[in-house]
């Protein structure tokens, strides 16, 4: 932590920003809490309970059980019968690897309240932490049958399928996400990556079109540009490619390479040099055209 946040209002705003952006900077959160907010907790008002939850989860991430217990006890004092606090208690058992206790508490919550989405998702997480991916997938698909519009859950299912190398099912999950937000270049890029991984000429075609859409929406998306370059070069060197499309493809890959080197020049990044970019073009087997 380089900056010294002296004023508790700045810290509160920063934490609110991290809450909304889903940033997972747990050490910073716990440090900020210890330095600044613990002394000013009374001034936070209603937002204080949200901050407590955020600090609790960050403390579990850092395995700082003192802070976690303190937050939990304060929340318990204020909301003694709350299902949300019970769920946090189950998370604490998860962090200490007492999975059976956690599962018991979650089952109790679900019995009390059938519509409680968050506890069902925690059950999936427990199976995932124990490495029982197949059960996690089954639980998550049952959950999604009930709560079909939950974007987080679709993303999670996509990741689980990728870990099991079920590309078709992962692609289906990303398609659901794309229905919700078709302008999100990151989802488009993800879909293109899954198609590219599947391989085969038709999938490469699909991947190329999705990569180009992602690059169109965000010209600074380096992964999309790289994907564009690689797919067009692969397709150009494939035997199934008709010759007039070959020239198009090669032009496309050259354009993508240009964009990448422009971005890299403007960024002045030492991470990669233009030689590596050229080298990547030369790596393709059977690539007859020279850039």
């Amino acid at each position, binding site marked *: 932590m380089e900056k010294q946040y002296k004023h508790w209002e700045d810290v509160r705003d920063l934490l609110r920003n991290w809450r909304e952006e889903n940033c997972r900077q747990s050490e910073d959160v716990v440090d900020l809490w210890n330095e600044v907010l613990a002394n000013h907790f009374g001034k936070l008002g209603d937002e204080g309970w949200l901050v407590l939850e955020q600090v609790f*989860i960050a403390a579990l991430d850092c395995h700082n059980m003192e802070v976690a217990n303190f937050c939990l006890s304060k929340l318990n004092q204020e909301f003694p019968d709350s299902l949300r606090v019970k769920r946090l208690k189950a998370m604490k058992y998860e962090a200490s690897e007492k999975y059976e206790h956690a599962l018991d508490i979650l089952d109790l919550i679900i019995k009390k309240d059938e519509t409680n989405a968050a506890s069902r998702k925690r059950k999936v997480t427990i199976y995932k932490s124990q490495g029982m991916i197949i059960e996690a997938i089954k639980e998550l698909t049952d959950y999604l049958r009930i709560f079909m519009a939950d974007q987080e859950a679709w993303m999670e299912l996509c990741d689980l399928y990728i870990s099991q190398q079920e590309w078709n099912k992962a692609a289906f999950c990303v398609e659901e996400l794309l229905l919700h937000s078709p302008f999100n270049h990151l989802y488009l890029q993800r879909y293109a990556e899954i198609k590219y991984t599947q391989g085969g000429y038709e999938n490469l075609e699909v991947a190329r079109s999705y990569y180009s859409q992602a690059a169109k929406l965000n010209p600074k998306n380096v992964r999309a540009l790289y994907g564009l370059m690689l797919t067009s070069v692969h397709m150009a060197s494939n035997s199934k490619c008709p010759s007039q499309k070959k020239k198009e493809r090669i032009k496309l890959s050259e354009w993508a390479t240009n964009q990448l080197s422009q971005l890299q020049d403007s960024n002045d990044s030492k991470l990669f040099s233009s030689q590596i970019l050229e080298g990547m073009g030369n790596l393709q087997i059977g690539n007859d055209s020279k850039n």
Partner: protein
Amino acid sequence: SSSMNKYIFILGMVLLFHAAYSAAQHRSYLRLTEQEFTSLPADIVLQTIFSLLLTVFGVTMIAGEFKEIRSNIDLQKKTWKNLNNRPSFYTFNHRGHIFNP
């Protein structure tokens, strides 16, 4: 929003109401004197338009920062690092606890 913008907005609304009231009064005057109603007098029309512009200006200044209309520009600022985080699915069995004995 500065108080100047609030005053402009209030002035605009007051002028608008005044123009509406004088237009209604004008019509009732014409009805009383049994004249035909062809159009409102020019000054009422001008006052209406001017107060409308004033009100609209005041409201937009009070409203604050405008959001970008193109949805993809907003999304360009997002990175995969944060978009990929799913708070409901955080696991805690990573190596984090080694750093905190």
